[in-house]
Structures are given as structure tokens and as C-alpha cells.
């Protein structure tokens, strides 16, 4: 298959991918920050500074996405990642596609 691409496509695709990865890292940082906050090992002042830093990171990411016109590209990469993780989990938990949800009523012994 011939791949047609110009500089603009390449830049948008690459930038979209980079920002999607930055967002995933930001999400991980958020989870860690919440765990620390809940764990009680931080003072209120430390929690506040951590929150402000993450807030600034949010603003920077949103600004970059808008400025570079890659909001859609980032969303698409993240949806692709979500689908990939979904199918990985599905593959690990139900490799033969025989989870109960695929069973028919008759197979479940349910009378209709």
C-alpha cells in the first residue's frame, strides 16, 4: 500500500503521538498524586503545590494541542491505545472468545 504523506501530515501525526504519550504520563502522575494525598504522607501545602503543578501541566498540554491543531490526532491516538489495551485484556482473560456473555440462553440453561 502506497503511503502518501506531506510534511504537515507528518508533523501533525508525530505531534499528536507525542502529546498523547505526554497525556498518558500526566494521567499516571495524577494517579500517583492522588495516592500520595490519600496516603496522608503529604502536608496540605505540599498537596497544593503538587495540584498546582499538575494544573499547569494540563494547561500547557491543552495550549499545545490547540496551537498545533492536533486535538483530534491526540484523541484518535488515545482511542487507538484504549482499543489496543481492551483487546489485550480480552485476549488474556478470554483468549478463545467463550466468555459467558457470548453464550446463548440455551447454553446457559435459561428458558425463554
Amino acid at each position, binding site marked *: *500500500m502506497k503511503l502518501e504523506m506531506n510534511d504537515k501530515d507528518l508533523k501533525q501525526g508525530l505531534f499528536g503521538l507525542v502529546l498523547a504519550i505526554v497525556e498518558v504520563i500526566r494521567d499516571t502522575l495524577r494517579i500517583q498524586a*492522588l495516592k500520595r494525598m490519600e496516603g496522608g504522607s503529604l502536608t496540605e501545602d505540599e498537596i*497544593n503545590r503538587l495540584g498546582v503543578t499538575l494544573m499547569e501541566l494540563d494547561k500547557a498540554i491543552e495550549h499545545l494541542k490547540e496551537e498545533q491543531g492536533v486535538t483530534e490526532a491526540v484523541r484518535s491516538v488515545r482511542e487507538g491505545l484504549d482499543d489496543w489495551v481492551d483487546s489485550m485484556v480480552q485476549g488474556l482473560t478470554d483468549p478463545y472468545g467463550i466468555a459467558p456473555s457470548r453464550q*446463548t440462553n440455551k447454553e446457559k440453561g435459561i428458558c*425463554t
Partner: protein
Amino acid sequence: MMTDKGLYIYCLAQGNQEEPLELRGLGGQPVMALLHRGLIAVVEECEAKSIQSEDQKVLADGLLIHQSVVDIAWERYETVLPFSFGMVIRPMDGKTAGENLKGWMERESEELRGKLMRLKSKAEYGVQVIWDPTIVLPKIRHNDKEIQDLEKEIQSKPKGVAYLLERKLAEIIKKRLEEAANVYFKDFYQRIRNCVEEIHVEKVRRENPPKQMIMNLSCLQEKDEVVLLGRELEKIGKIQGFDVRFTGPWPPYSFA
């Protein structure tokens, strides 16, 4: 007639007459009815190789032709066992594709007849339930003390702490919505199950935010007895924040 050629197969049916279907299929060749001991294979002569194309449009058009041939066969024979798009029977071991196909029909005869019997006069219906969490959420929020307390706490905190608490609130809301979706799923599943013969739960598809598909079902039911399902779906569609998509009747692709 058939030598080094392959046979593209659309569906199987029960019958005793080998009349052609008077239409052309995927490759522009006449669609034939190949009879073998009371079973009919609806086929078209083609090259003995897989149907492949890198062009999505070519594949999508092919799929539509496949479906329309199965539809026409379904109308003629009432009950069909549809095949997935892209199945080609090849000549092998010195036998033509037609001989191979008949051999397979012979070997699997009992199981194929059993499947056709199970699908007799039945059709597949698609049911998708979509909800708008923004409409359902106020009800959840109203009854949840943890959410209410957290919302109050956020207002009294400095902005960095409030930011983190808002994230925590978002996680709790997400969890509550998932729980609610699960409860609705079980309720709707039960209600729909009582109106159909068989159900397959399919993967949900992505909707335009904020809407989300919470249920995607393929249902098998007698064509003449689908009114009950229609009525139940109408009731579900009337619940505030929910939409129901109901499609069909289709040949029973998901149950073949």
C-alpha cells in the same frame, strides 16, 4: 463446468431445486444454487484465491454485494445459514471446488441440517442501547453523600488541592456511572432475553460524546413474534437519558 476455478460461497439453505438465482455476484458471475441431498449452497464461480484488496471501498462494496445476495437467498429459501464475507472453496486433491464443497456438505450434513432447523423462520435483530450520562448523573449525584461531601470540600480548598480533589471526584463519578450502567445492563438484558430465543452480547461501539453505548446485542427471534421485543424496547427508549436502536430483520449472521 468447474475445473481450476474456486467457488465463492454466500450461504447454505434447504431445498430440492437447483434453479439459478438470476443475479450476478461479487465477481460479476451468475449466482448459482448448488444442490446436494436436500441442501443448497448459494455460490459464484471465482478465482481460486482469497478475496483481498487494500482498498477499503472495494471491500465495503464487496460486503454489500455479499449481504444483498444473502438477503435475496433468504427471501427465496426462508431459512439460510449465512457465511462470512470472503469464503472461497478451492479445488484440492484432484477434486474441483464443487466436488470439495459437496463432500463437505455430505460430511457435515447432519450438523448443517440441525443448524438450519434451529434458524427456521427466525431472523436476527440488532439492539443497541445508548445513554447520555450527563442526564443520568444528576440523579446519581442527588443520592450520593460521598459525592456531595467532596463537592463541598472542593469549594473550601486552595486551588491546587481543589484540582486534585476534582480528579478524585471525577474518578468516583466514573465508577458510579459504571455501576449504574451495569445495573441498567442487567435489567435490560433480562427484559430483552424474555422476548427472544437467543442473545449474543456484542462489543459496544464508540458514540459521539457524551453519549455512550452501554449495550450491543444480536437477538434471534421468530420473524412473526418480534412484536413483544419491539414493545419492550419502546419502554426502554422512554426512560430519560436512553436511546434505543433497533435494526432488522437480518439473515442470522451472528447465529450461523
